[in-house]
């Protein structure tokens, strides 16, 4: 076993509370599959046989009943943690540290991508890296989002990512918010990597290959609680820290004492003597222009694979959720209509729509660019465009639904007209109701 996979599926979806009010983020249906199925599928496809899933009790329960998850052939080692424990991703890693025997691949449950996973892992292997991660060009959302008037202002702080000439080595990482006094780079870094590309407009896919030593390091350093927020920036910075590199050189002689004294030192990967020998004997070098050894003697190395093609999306906002629903089904060649669905022949259905299991679609309906979940009933003369209908929804006759998200078990009254709305779990929309750009969920109607 070269890599152990760890799936982080405990996130609450704090940036899309409208959707996750009743359904945990990991179980949100995307193309009629729970969100967490996608990363699991990604792992299964490349041949993982076992995954450690860190999640909450609630998700664990849902997983046991979900058909799609049951289809997963890998052995799922589900570790549930307390939801309200305020546990960060790094905390979770620390929690499962006893289970970690090798280097790990960590990914988040909200990642939907068609990346060739070996690209990231190859970087990790080839350079004997401490960390390798995946990034992608930010996706521009084109769909109108319910409840948002006009275009969303992209007031979010940009991430600055610095890579070397090859675009692989990760040299610098910072958020705009931390750079008020300007971006500052040590000259020694520029000497080693004289051409640095600073990229903005990248999204971090939250997929990391990490050395086992990093997990061990986490158990020593309890202050780090988040992988993305703290651990990764720390590793990137540490690449050029003098103490790690120079002391590591001495390591050969007084290995044991050094490591015990210095906690952070553990972080640098322990090159097997053979690897080190190979590096010494080889004329290979990762840079040109000066005569120093490969990697300039640095033992801690971070790499990043930046996708410039294909889909890579993190479902962490409503806009992303809607977008992904449209894109994700294209990744898989499956029949768009579930065999158990009952669809009237006189229904106009676009090829870009998906109908889930045990659905009833009546006559004279029109369904375009939409997803209809399992156990959903759509009655006569209903028009659904650009919408996501989750499971167990009932849509009465003559409704017109456009650009909306209807959560599970909602009932849409006869002749209702919904445009760019979000209808929460189990909501009832009164007959002939006309709504535009509204969000309606539980607050109006207590359980």
């Amino acid at each position: 076993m070269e890599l152990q996979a760890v799936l982080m599926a405990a996130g609450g979806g704090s940036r899309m509370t409208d959707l996750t009010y009743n359904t945990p983020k990991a179980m949100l249906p995307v193309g009629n599959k729970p969100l967490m199925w996608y990363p699991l599928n990604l792992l299964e496809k490349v041949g993982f046989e076992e995954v450690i899933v860190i999640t909450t009790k609630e998700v664990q329960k849902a997983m046991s009943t979900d058909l799609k998850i049951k289809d997963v052939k890998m052995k799922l080692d589900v570790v549930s943690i307390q939801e309200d424990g305020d546990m960060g991703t790094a905390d979770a890693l620390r929690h499962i540290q006893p289970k970690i025997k090798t280097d790990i691949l960590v990914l988040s449950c909200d990642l939907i991508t068609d990346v060739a996973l070996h690209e990231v892992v190859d970087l990790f292997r080839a350079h004997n890296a401490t960390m390798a991660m995946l990034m992608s060009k930010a996706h521009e959302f084109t769909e109108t989002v319910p409840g948002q008037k006009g275009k969303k202002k992209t007031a979010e702080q940009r991430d600055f990512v610095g890579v070397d000439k090859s675009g692989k080595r990760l040299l610098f990482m910072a958020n705009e918010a931390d750079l008020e006094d300007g971006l500052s780079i040590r000259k020694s870094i520029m000497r080693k990597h004289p051409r640095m590309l600073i990229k903005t407009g990248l999204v971090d896919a939250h997929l990391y290959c990490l050395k086992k030593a990093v997990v061990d390091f986490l158990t020593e350093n309890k202050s780090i609680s988040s992988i993305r927020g703290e651990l990764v920036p720390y590793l990137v910075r540490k690449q050029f820290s003098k103490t790690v590199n120079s002391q590591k050189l001495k390591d050969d002689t007084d290995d044991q004492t050094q490591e015990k004294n210095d906690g952070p030192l553990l972080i640098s990967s322990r090159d097997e003597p053979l690897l080190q020998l190979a590096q010494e004997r080889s004329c290979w070098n990762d840079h040109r222009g000066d005569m120093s050894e490969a990697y300039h003697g640095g033992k801690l190395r971070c790499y990043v694979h930046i996708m410039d093609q294909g889909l890579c999306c993190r479902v962490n906002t409503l806009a992303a959720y809607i977008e992904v629903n449209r894109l994700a089904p294209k990744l898989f060649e499956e029949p768009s209509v579930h065999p158990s669905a009952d669809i009237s022949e006189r229904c106009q259905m676009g090829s870009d729509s998906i109908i889930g299991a045990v659905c009833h679609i009546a006559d004279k309906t029109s369904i375009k660019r939409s997803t209809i979940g399992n156990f959903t009933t759509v009655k006569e003369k209903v028009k659904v465009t650009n919408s996501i209908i989750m499971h167990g929804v009932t849509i009465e006759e003559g409704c017109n639904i456009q650009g909306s998200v209807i959560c599970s078990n909602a009932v849409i009254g006869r002749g209702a007209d919904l445009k760019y709305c979000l209808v929460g779990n189990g909501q009832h929309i009164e007959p002939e109701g006309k709504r535009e750009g509204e969000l309606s969920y539980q607050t109006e109607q207590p359980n």
Partner: protein
Amino acid sequence: MASKGGKQSRSASGLSCRKGAGDQEEEEQPLQAVLVADSFNRRFFPVTKDQPRALLPLGNVAMIDYTLEFLTSTGVQETFVFCCWMASKIKAHLQKSKWCRPSSPNTVHIITSDLYRSLGDVLRDVDAKSLVRSDFILVYGDVVSNIDISQALQEHRHRRKMDKNISVMTMIFKESSPGHRSRCEEDDVIVAVDSKSQQILHYQKTQGLKKLQFPMNIFHSGSEEFEIRHDLLDSHISICSPQVAELFTDNFDYQTRDDFVRGLLVNEEILGNQIHVHVTQDGYGVRVSNLLMYDSVSSDLVRRWVYPLTPEANFTDQEGHSCTYSRHNVYRASGVSLGHGSQMEENVLIGCDTSIGANCYISNSVIGDNCIIGDNVVLDHAYIWNHVHIASNVEIIQSVICNKAEVKEGVTLKKQCVLAYDVVIGPNISLPEGTVVSMHHPEEEEEDDDEFLSDDAEVGQRSDKTKQKVFNPAEVGAEGKGYIWKASSLDDTEEEELSQCLWGLVLNPDPESDSEDSDTDDPDDPVIPSPEMDDVKVFHMEVLGTLQRGLEENISCDNLVLEINSLKYAYNISLKEVMQILTRVVLEYPFQQQGTHLTPSQYVTLLLPKWAPVFKNYVKRAQDHLDCLSAFEEHFLEQESHWAAMVKVLMNMYELEILEEEMILRWFSQGATSDKSRQLRKNQGLQKFIQWLEEAEESSEEDGE
């Protein structure tokens, strides 16, 4: 004369340009270049005391010839060469060269002035004379390059067309990683570029910095990818739009190109001017900015990195300069004789009629014409210029020996020694690392601060001095001639800096080491306008320049006043100082023009009444009159021989109504502060004048009654 010729041809072509207006016409205009044949610093002192930098031989060819060859081969058809220091020598050299032959595809105009103090002055002059019509190439006279800039030029023109003249400059860089030998430590820059447009967002010299700061506003341009590049070597070649000259005129505080770039980047949002980069990977373009660079450029040249500019190409087309090229990069000109058992290991260039004795070992060296080298001589990285005599059993490592120097028997020159012109060393002495020997005494240096202004007058004084001072045999050997320019004289820190500068900073392989920090001063700062220099002095020079230009170009007095006023604010000069300086400048002006031997009447006529309106503008209050008069007095105290003219000048000023009689009388009566000024007041002419004034006053008073 040549500059006049240049002007005429310019105006002629200017006319033709006006006839054929239109964009297409513009593109067909001949490409122009501005070549600055002056470094405006003293990095090559004391070598450049005898020869301007542009004429120093590199691979036995003057550096300016490389620059001109580069310009010509890149398609330049008209070049303006601006000279200041030792302009006559450069002019003579160019007139003899192939560039001034009628067959030359590149018309060279030589423009000289003693008043250029910086690149800024040159470009302001370019603007004032409106020499350039379209995009031009700006280059220094010590740039060696084979870069084909036609692509960069095309890009530049394209950008200008697309963006309505927003892009004003394209800087040419050569890719070269930080550890490279030809990287000049003091020229190290860090550039932040927009990846897509290649626009410069940030430009900084990195010498002595440990952390590089980039202001955030450079990342707000809307682009998603930026490059921070430290692998660029500034070739000091730039393609400029005509606005560059105008911008220099508008911003009289811009002295160097760095000032300009910095200024534009800071004001980008306001002015909307942009600077772009062009990076070449395979071209060669380097400025010889110190001796270390001289060393590496020389060896690159011999190793044929600057192809097609190779030693055997004889591109200067001088007779007798052709040489043969053989294995291991050994070049021999005609008439070279090599003694028995002598080896030319590799990378050796030997000029014509040089004879080398037996059992010599020469590697990585350049030897000039007509040199005589004895037996058992070891030369490694030695740069020996013309007419040098080297006796037997000499060892020279990484040193420069200038024309007509003589090295006697048994001498060893360690690394980075410099023997300037006509120096004699030896016999049997070893010079330590970094020794600089010159026939000019280092103290001379301090005595004549403004050698720029009157180098002719100096030569006479110099020979007197050298007679007085004695060579130290312990330093230069028993038969030696020359003075050591000490690298570590404790009493004079400035001197220390100068000597260090000669070789420049050695590339430091370990960036974290402390030694880098010891050279924090930026030696590349231009000598004149550095902030340490007295503002008043700079102002003085500027006023002088302004008035002179005013005369040459017939600028109206109102404009002169405006210019002086702006200078006053730029240098923060009080009104009183303005008054004094103006007076002194005007009074000194005739001397500078004609030398010190003037008859009083000549002197007075030269003191053109032209400037009277300027004076009138400043001399208003009573205090102004007194300030003016005290400056006047000071001036004449220094120029005793011209006391005869003093009265005439005073009379003149009185008649022109610059000074009022009342004030003159008050100044006279206010009494003298020193013996000399008392003497001055006793001057017959002056007394007569005062008397006359007093009488005139009385009579006018009487009239009034």
